[in-house]
């Protein structure tokens, strides 16, 4: 698997002043691999995901996607990576459908998202302003954005937060389907058992 690795982390270390979040972190992820990022609050899961997305820089070491440093990816290569963080990136004054249409056009996708909305049970909320959604619904819209991005690498930061059991099951199913279809997923979670599949890589942060 190492030869076909697309996402590589080498000697990653993050220091916050005197305090070391993690160091000497190595990993190689190739197609059809799922990595689960576990660790207590404040152990650096979000920081690591932001580094993988190229939003932040590690204190030392580096992450490459197809051999190129993630924070220097060319615009067309950035389409490979989807990051969904704690913030859902919804404009409160736009409707769900408008938010999704904007996201799709930004990613250059013409996808019809009716099916995705129906799957997420959001079809009735499609024309509601995002400000009127519940926290769980907002999270579902965030997942819809993930789904329609068509990215190869999914970086998910505690994606099950605020989701009901049905939503969690759907997310797990999507993640498995994504990985089985040749994708890569890195998921930070407190419930690794939900996602666990055979061959999933566990990255444990202290």
């Amino acid at each position, binding site marked *: 698997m190492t030869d076909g690795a697309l996402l590589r982390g080498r000697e990653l270390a993050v220091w916050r002043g005197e305090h070391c979040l993690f160091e000497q972190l190595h990993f190689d992820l190739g197609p059809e691999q799922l990595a689960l990022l576990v660790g207590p609050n404040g152990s650096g899961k979000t920081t690591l995901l932001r580094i993988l997305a190229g939003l932040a820089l590690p204190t030392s070491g580096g992450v490459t996607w197809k051999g190129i440093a993630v924070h220097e990816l060319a615009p067309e290569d950035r389409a490979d990576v989807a990051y969904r963080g704690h913030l859902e990136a919804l404009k409160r004054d736009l409707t769900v459908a408008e938010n999704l249409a904007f996201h799709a056009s930004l990613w250059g996708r013409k996808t019809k998202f009716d099916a995705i909305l129906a799957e997420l049970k959001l079809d009735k909320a499609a024309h509601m302003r995002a400000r009127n959604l519940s926290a769980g619904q907002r999270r579902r819209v965030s997942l819809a*954005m993930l789904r329609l991005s068509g990215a190869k690498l999914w970086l998910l930061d505690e994606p099950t937060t605020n989701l009901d059991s049905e939503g969690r099951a759907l997310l797990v199913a999507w993640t498995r389907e994504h990985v089985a279809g040749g994708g890569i997923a890195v998921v930070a979670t407190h419930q690794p058992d939900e996602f666990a599949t055979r061959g999933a890589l566990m990255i444990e942060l202290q």
Partner: protein
Amino acid sequence: MSAFHAVFARDLRVAFRRWSELAHPLIFFLIVVALFPLALSPTTQQLREVGTGVLWVAALLSSLLSLDGLFRSDADDGSLEQLLLSPAPMTITVLAKVAAHALVTLLPLICLVPVTAWSYNMPSAALPTMALALLLAAPTLSVFIALGAALTVGLRRGGSIVGLLVLPLTGPLLIFGTRATDLSINGEPPTAPLLFLAALAVLAVSLGPVAIAAAVKVGLE
């Protein structure tokens, strides 16, 4: 180009759904412009003499009021991260955001200026020049404002610092803008200062987005 259109259209739509916020800088401008005659109790002639300067400074100050909306709200709801990560080039995204912002905040302000200039007893022959000078100054001003907003996007309360960053940069705009207006009030051709404003606009629009995109990236880290 589709990315430009998408971001531009989205920002306009968000702005119009929050239209009451768009009115704040305009009302601020009208109040400042109305306060000066009260404080100075000038003669008609004096009013005409201070008019150009008062209107320009008031317009600059009011344009600063709206800048928090440029990147702050996108940073707060996570959209800015997604814009950075999306395959759309950040310089194009930034250019679209700045253009949309200028259209909804600076353009209404520029439309108000000739009206208030008339109340300052300025000759109506000079009004087209004044409007043109403001239009030419607007792109540069937008880029300066966006640069300030981008540099402070990582700070919790960036508002007052942005003023300190941006206002000194507006010196050249004020000098050339008021000069053009004064020249045309005195019946002389205002071409030279207008050309300077146009040159500054070209420079700001071509180089600005690169700097703003870099500043946003650093600000979010």
